[in-house]
């Protein structure tokens, strides 16, 4: 009886203690996540504008409006084009560089530093540098093009070129990050596998790659794919610095930023937020499934 009482007492103590320690975090969780997201969902059903005295409930009209909004649709297409350009290139180049660097012994860390440098640098500042490099008259890229007889290209103000240009900058920033993830994957492949494959007659580097490296890197590759997809989907900084959405270069987050914080159309911006969040959450669910899987592999 006494023991039971004691156990009861201890359980009660643990309840108080646990919640007391987690209290600040729980409070912030409610204030910074649960309430704001509920607010966004409710607001997406209204036509509220910041500073307006009243608002109406408009049901799902904000969402149907988005489907007819030329700017939103363009931002949607641009974002997907951007992802479609950045994703494969950053994965293949990241993997290729990782394989080459992995085979180096003495120079490995130098290459690692060089390729990783763009990941840590402030993208806004570097975007300005790219603006200069790609300048139609002053930049070396167009100087090179005109000197070999190609007409100068307005990489940033020509609607045809602007998204591919932004993707090259995105690729430049992302490739080193993916390289490091692939390097981690490569180091976890046991050397014996290659030796065994050699006995089986796999000799050339391509043979080794197809039979060992690629299948063993499967989980890493999937994981890098989803992570890069999330990063690319959130493209914002380069657009805000280089184009401010001009020349038809709006991306999803920039359109959202304009509607919410420049035009203050909160109801409509909330609907766009939910569209953005929907994609991010789907990708994140896939990502966490992959992390669980990856734990089994390693």
């Amino acid at each position, binding site marked *: 009886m006494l023991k039971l009482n004691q156990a009861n007492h201890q359980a009660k103590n643990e309840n108080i203690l646990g919640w007391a320690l*987690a209290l600040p975090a729980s409070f912030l969780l409610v204030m910074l*996540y649960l309430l704001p997201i509920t607010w966004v969902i409710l607001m997406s059903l209204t036509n509220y504008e910041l500073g307006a005295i009243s608002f109406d409930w408009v049901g799902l009209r904000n969402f149907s409006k988005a489907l007819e909004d030329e700017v939103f649709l363009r931002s949607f297409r641009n974002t997907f084009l951007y992802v479609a350009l950045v994703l494969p290139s950053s994965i293949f180049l990241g993997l290729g560089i990782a394989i080459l660097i992995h085979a180096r012994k003495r120079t490995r860390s130098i290459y690692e530093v060089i390729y990783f440098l763009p990941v840590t640098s402030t993208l806004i500042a570097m975007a300005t540098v790219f603006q200069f490099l790609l300048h139609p008259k002053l930049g070396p890229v167009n100087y090179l093009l005109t000197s070999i007889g190609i007409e100068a290209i307005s990489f940033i103000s020509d609607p045809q070129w602007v998204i591919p240009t932004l993707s090259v900058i995105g690729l430049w920033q992302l490739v080193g990050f993916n390289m490091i993830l692939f390097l981690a994957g490569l180091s976890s492949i046991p050397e014996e596998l290659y030796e065994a494959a050699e006995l089986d007659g796999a000799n050339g580097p391509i043979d080794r790659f197809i039979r060992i490296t690629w299948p063993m890197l499967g989980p890493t590759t999937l994981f890098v794919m989803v992570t890069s997809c999330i990063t690319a989907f959130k493209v914002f900084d380069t657009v805000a610095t280089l184009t401010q959405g001009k020349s038809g270069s709006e991306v999803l987050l920039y359109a959202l930023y304009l509607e919410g914080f420049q035009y203050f159309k909160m109801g409509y911006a909330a609907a766009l937020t939910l569209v953005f969040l929907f994609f991010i959450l789907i990708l994140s669910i896939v990502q966490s499934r992959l992390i669980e899987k990856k734990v089994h592999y390693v």
Partner: protein
Amino acid sequence: MKINSSLMHAASHCVLIIGALFMLMPFIWMLCTAFKPPQEIFEASLWPFPKNFYGFQHFNEVIKSAPIGKYMLNGVIVCAGILFVQLLVAIPAAYALAKINFTGREFLFICILGALSVPIQATSLPLYIAMSASNLLNTYFAQMLPFFLSMFAIFLLRQNFKSFPDEIIHAARLDGMNELEIVWRVVTPSAIPAITAFAIFSLVAHWNDLYWPLIVISSTELAPPPLGMLLFASAESGANYGALMAGATLITTPMVLAFLIARRRFIQGITMTSFR
């Protein structure tokens, strides 16, 4: 066979060096242009290095027209404040989730996992409305508040604390230590490597963040480096690329230097983001 392998070796170096040049090119041009006289900048060429050294005149120009030092200071204040509160909040919560068996623990952990992938862009509208209603816009506090709770820190440290031996905690309790002392003086020191990695991740992420400062800060007095750079770039109308490149150099230098000094920890800390 031998010749073949050294040929492969040379070829792989060639590819890596070409790639490395592409990665470094923006940095090289930025630095060189910052030291070029204006007339050389206006003659486009493929040769990045200045023919006549222009000294620090572009840099002087930048420092006169934009409070770069102030931007850096703002960045330091905001990043340090965010990191401090993040750890203050996350460490006790992570300890509770790892070591204390309380009702609702599972529920709280699932909520945290759910919020882990919610980016600032998803909550920025209501946070902005609430801050504007309570006159908090254009303050350091507004820049920091949304990031005070790091789900990632809780998640990471919970994993870390879980492997901490229960016996030591029990012994500390018998010694008369209270639970807060146990958290801060017994368990926390054991997680220093994880905390360091998280600190680097947090500092880099918030030092380079543009989205949120762009929304809540409109005065140059409070702008962190990325927003400062944006303001400076839009103020430099025309093509004063010498000054722009000098500004970009000043803005990028602290992070790049920190990275070069502690590159192992940086790579570890930043690639951790992929596991959030």
